[in-house]
């Protein structure tokens, strides 16, 4: 009897273990390098935060698994006049708390994204007014003809007006300044996953939204999101099965993970372009031994730097093959990218030496270089390799590699002579790169990240025209022309697009987007 009893017990135990494993089989645990700083979709314009909150909140116009525009909360949109767009809203959509989605929520969300405390203003800058034309129709009027409006608002997420008002969260707050409100910890969107529990920097749990208006492609019931900052710890967590997905995978561990049989590394090109910039504005460089003049004002010096960089070795050794050398400031996949123009000037040490000699620097010169060491893939190692390349043509680089917390404030003050930066156009359109990186610096936000103040009035003129040109062929032609002028000027030194590297357990499948977003809806567990 006793024996039978224990048998029965063990059967029950086995059964319950089996059930447990079925339940946990539909949970995916994600270990990421960092945490989303807040759950508020308008408080920070940063890829990671928008990627995480994008599972809970949705825009009017979304992007599909190939980054093409797709209807989300709007079922259709059309331009009714050069400056007016009409959006038909999806009917029957409910927020996670059960309230219905209407045009009022759209008006509220756009006002919130454009208002005080919002970091998303760059996406709403060109909007003059959002008008309600019935419960499920809105019209957006832009300040000038704006053909890429649907692209630009694809990251403006819609919140519930009623919920925000009930929770005193009608304005986004900036967590970087230590301010938080209810929307930083709780979320009420329309998306395929709802936020269940939020512990900042510890764990965030998401649960599948059973009442989602659309189809959720994957089968995952629950997502556990954990930040794991240390590279080695994150890899160890994946290998030991503590997490199912990690992002990013350190390049040196790719082979080890692929060889383990427990997990694989998904690699793909990212939309971010890594490049070097040079101070071309000051009459004398701040960090250089050349006094009284600025060598970077001479195109020959800039071109010499360009041709001295052995990009293929950097790609092969520093990036272990996980990068795509580029001649353009935008990546394939960005509107306006033209493969025919993507040819780098050849790597040629002798030519570089000659250019430097022609410019009057036959014996080279010294220049200070600023570089982050924890922002982009192997960023400080890229800078070290560039410093070694430049040493070969006689330029001595005093490299200062530091953490992003001190690096970005410094270069954003333009307190640099030579720097490394990465840029993903948030609108997936070349105009964004032209406007932020390549046009002359003005006080209206133009050239905001053109930290070396490269300036060519012809590029400015084209950038303005591109903004309002509605004819696609003409527009592409102008983008091409602007890129050509910039490349001929050697305005920046483009390096490469780094590759995304996600570590994924063998039983998990998901879709990797080139903008490094990780939508939970495409995740499945076998």
């Amino acid at each position: 009897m006793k024996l039978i009893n224990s048998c029965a017990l063990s059967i029950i135990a086995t059964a319950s273990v089996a059930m447990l494993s079925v339940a946990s089989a539909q949970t995916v645990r994600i270990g990421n390098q960092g945490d989303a700083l807040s759950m508020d979709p308008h408080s920070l314009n940063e890829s990671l935060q928008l990627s995480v909150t994008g599972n809970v909140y949705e825009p009017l116009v979304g992007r599909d698994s190939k980054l093409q525009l797709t209807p989300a909360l709007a079922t259709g949109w059309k331009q009714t006049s050069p400056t007016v767009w009409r959006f038909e809203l999806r009917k029957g959509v409910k927020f996670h708390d059960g309230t219905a989605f209407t045009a009022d929520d759209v008006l509220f969300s756009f006002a919130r994204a454009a208002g005080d405390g919002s970091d998303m203003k760059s996406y709403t800058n060109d909007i003059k007014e959002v008008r309600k034309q019935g419960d499920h129709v809105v019209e957006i009027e832009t300040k000038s003809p704006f053909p890429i409006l649907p692209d630009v608002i694809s990251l403006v997420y819609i919140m519930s007006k009623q919920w925000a008002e009930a929770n005193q969260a009608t304005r986004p707050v900036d967590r970087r300044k230590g301010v938080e409100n209810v929307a930083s910890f709780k979320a009420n969107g329309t998306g395929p996953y709802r936020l269940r529990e939020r512990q900042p920097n510890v764990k965030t749990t998401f649960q599948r939204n059973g009442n989602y208006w659309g189809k959720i492609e994957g089968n995952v019931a629950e997502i556990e999101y954990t930040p794991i900052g240390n590279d080695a710890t994150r890899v160890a967590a994946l290998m030991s099965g503590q997490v199912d997905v990690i992002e990013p995978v350190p390049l040196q561990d790719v082979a080890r993970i692929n060889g383990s049989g427990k997990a694989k590394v998904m690699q793909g090109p990212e939309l971010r372009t890594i490049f070097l910039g040079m101070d071309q504005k000051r009459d004398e460089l701040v960090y250089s031994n050349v006094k009284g003049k600025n060598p970077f004002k001479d195109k020959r010096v800039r071109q010499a730097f360009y041709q001295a960089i052995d990009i293929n070795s950097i790609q092969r050794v520093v990036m272990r093959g996980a990068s795509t050398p580029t001649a353009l400031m935008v990546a394939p996949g960005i509107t306006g990218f033209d493969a025919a123009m993507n040819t780098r000037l050849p790597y040629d040490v002798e030519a570089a030496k000659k250019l430097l000699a022609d410019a009057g620097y036959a014996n080279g010169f010294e220049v200070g270089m600023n570089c982050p060491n924890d922002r982009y893939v192997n960023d400080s190692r890229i800078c070290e390799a560039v410093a070694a390349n430049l040493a070969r043509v006689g330029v001595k680089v005093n490299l200062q590699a530091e953490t992003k917390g001190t690096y970005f404030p410094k270069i954003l003050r333009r307190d640099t002579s030579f720097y490394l930066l990465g840029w993903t156009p948030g609108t997936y359109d070349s105009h964004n790169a032209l406007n932020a990186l390549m046009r002359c610096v003005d006080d209206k936000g133009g050239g905001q990240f053109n930290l070396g103040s490269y300036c060519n009035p012809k590029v400015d003129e084209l950038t303005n025209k591109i903004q309002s040109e509605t004819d696609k062929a003409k527009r592409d032609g102008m983008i091409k022309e602007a890129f050509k002028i910039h490349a001929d000027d050697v305005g920046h030194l483009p390096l490469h697009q780094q590759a995304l590297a996600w570590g994924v357990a063998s039983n998990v499948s998901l879709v990797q987007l080139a903008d490094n977003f990780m939508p939970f809806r495409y995740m499945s567990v076998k």
Partner: protein
Amino acid sequence: MYKRLVKWFDSDLGHSFKSSPVAMGAALLAFVCVFCAVFAPWVAPHNPFDLATLELGNARLPPAWQAGGNPSFFLGTDDQGRDILSALMYGTRISLAVGLASVILSVLVGVALGLLAGFVGGWLDAFLMRLCDVMLSFPAILVALLIAGVGRALFPNAHDSLAFGVLILSISLTGWVQYARTVRGSTMVERSKEYVQAARVTGVSSARIMRRHVLPNVLGPVLVLATIQVATAIISEATLSFLGVGAPPTSPSLGTLIRVGNDYLFSGEWWITIFPGVMLVVIALSVNLLGDWLRDALNPRLR
């Protein structure tokens, strides 16, 4: 020179040295390290600090005896194609220089303040010793980090040499406390002895008494302490560089080399971090053993 060496070997100290195999072994190890470091430009097969000679194609080669190794890079190469063996020699040079410089600086400061406190006494003594208490209540590496951080904030785009200056300063400013304490104690003992009183009676000035009479008699313990502190200073330097606030990445010290290699430890490229680590252990161990021996040899009770 030779005669003095012979004389030293015949002295008590020399005898104790000859009869201690540990001391001789440690001295030999230390000598090899110092020799390689001092003569690195002539001994090392490559110059790892000359960026122009680095070849990315040579990056991450394993040691020569492993498959894929290259005989001209005996201990392999790091992620930028630097020869590890040469980088070790040059790195040791930086580590030793920073270690010695910071110990000399902290000995100067510590001995001077300790002498003053012990000899003058009174409120000056109380003030200096409370200052020591405060310094001692913080972990040394924390204080060093603070000073290094402040130094970097004051001179954000300093030249490499200034970075080393800040490094030396931050280590020595935490190290002087121990000398001050030791010297103060010995000085208080010496102060009341007859020879000091005799000097005072004959009208010798306080400064001269301190310098000519007390100082030579309190230097014994300082010598022992300084030897051991060299090892501590080298490790502090390595720690600061490991944490990324020390030597600049283009002229790596041992700590920088270990940090760089640390990223690759799990990926099978063990040589980038293991060899600098072993080197650090060897230097610290040999210096510590020498210090231990010196302490025993100078202690009359153990003779």
